[in-house]
């Protein structure tokens, strides 16, 4: 009986996993805490003029953010955002979006 019960639960779990397969889970760590607040504008797909940065090379994102921050690259709003992050934090954000 216990075995049947377990088997049923396993089936249920497999079904649930199937249901959620399109969802990419998030891990709670410093990378995520710094980055998910950017996801309000930077989606996993291009939606309008704001580019998606998901899957872009980490070095590219890191350089862009540092250049925005240090006013070496012109922007409308990104300079104002990038000034809120240290080099180390920018690296974490770059890693997060690059792994998306």
């Amino acid at each position, binding site marked *: 009986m216990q075995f049947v019960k377990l088997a049923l639960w396993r089936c249920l779990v497999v079904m649930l996993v199937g249901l959620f397969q399109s969802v990419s889970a998030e891990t709670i760590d410093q990378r995520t*805490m710094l980055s*998910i*607040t950017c996801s309000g504008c930077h989606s996993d797909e291009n939606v309008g003029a*704001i580019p998606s940065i998901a899957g872009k090379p980490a070095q590219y994102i890191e350089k862009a953010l540092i250049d925005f921050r240090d006013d070496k690259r012109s922007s*409308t709003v990104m300079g*104002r955002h990038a000034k*809120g992050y240290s080099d180390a934090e920018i690296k974490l954000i770059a890693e997060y979006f690059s792994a998306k």
Partner: protein
Amino acid sequence: MNNKTSRRRFLQLSGSVLSAASLGMWPLNLIAGNSGKPTTYRVVIVGGGFGGATCAKYIKLFDPSIDVTLVERDVRFVTCPFSNLVIGGLRDINSITHDYSVLKKKYGINVVQGDVVDIDAVKNTLLLKNGKSLPYDKAVVSPGIDFLWNSVEGYTEKDVDILPHAWKAGKQTIVLKSQIEAMPDGGVVVIVAPPNPFRCPPGPYERASLIAGYLKQYKPKSKVVILDAKQKFSKMPLFTQAWDTLYPGMIEWVAGTSGGRVTEIDVAKKTVFNELGDPIAGAVVNYIPHQAAGAIARKADLTDASGWCPVNQKTFESTKHKNIHVIGDSAVATPLPKSGYAANSEGKMCAAAIVSELNAAVMPDPSYSNTCYSLIGKNYGISVAAVYRYDGNKIIKVKGSGGISPIKADDSFRRAEALYTSSWYANITRDTFS
């Protein structure tokens, strides 16, 4: 205790498990538990706006094993952001209306349509208007704002269809839009702007801009008068500069001490009186009442003397009742503004705090940001933004970050920000509702 341990393990595994679940990886005690079935934590969220919907989604992203129920009064949610575009005729209301079907299907969130009438903080139970109750391990209260109807003489809640506030989007948005469309050319639209703190600080001024945009095209002899309880307002230099450029002579702003403070209203005559006793009549009067935390927050004793909800600004747990978190416009999260973007950011941090606590894990340092665009004309956008952290005691703005768009900027900069305004809307609603 065993359950908590299994959940922590589940959380650590969740990233890989969900993408490539091999059954052998699953700890048996997660699947079956000690009693033969799993014990699940229940989080109940009150209010499906930018705060509540985001929080529900991110709890599920962090830990799908948590049972999340979102209780929302309406079947569909009409956003306050972009409702000024509907009033100004630049958008259809359907394009700012969202439902909860994706949150239900994709993330497995239980969405319950209902009215929460009280919260029993001792028994950890929400009480619904239909008599049902919902038990919780953690409650998140995100009801937005409510109005203090008695803040001026002569105006009550019953008068909203005559003098619409349109500060909660939906039917009210259409009432205001229809009145402006029906008024004669040469009429005055009076906007009565509320004192701080209130939802969407740049909102009344974006509204004045987009109404002026409509009037300029269809009723060019008309104008907009803003009677303000305040001495200054959000993005003020940018708005006044833009008004001079796009709508010269069409928008008049009256500061609080110059007769802007409205104390009485004659609803039948569509006339407001300032504290000096001067009558100001409008063909349309958009009276935006003084505000406080949503009614349920007040009923559940989550507010303090200010009318808003004090919280631990890292976890958003109420400082008045344990296991109840308050996010969005109702919460005191200053210096974060009462905006949809801030509510979305708070929803994520609150989700991380709750999931960490339920899994007996330490929450990493939170980070918050805000980005608010205001559209002044079809091709003219401005913004305010900032990054915030928790200093161990309260939320602080990161020094040097943020600010408003530059005063000295060319047309292409304003046009770019107008483009980003609509992309912002598409992205933030996608992040919140799908």
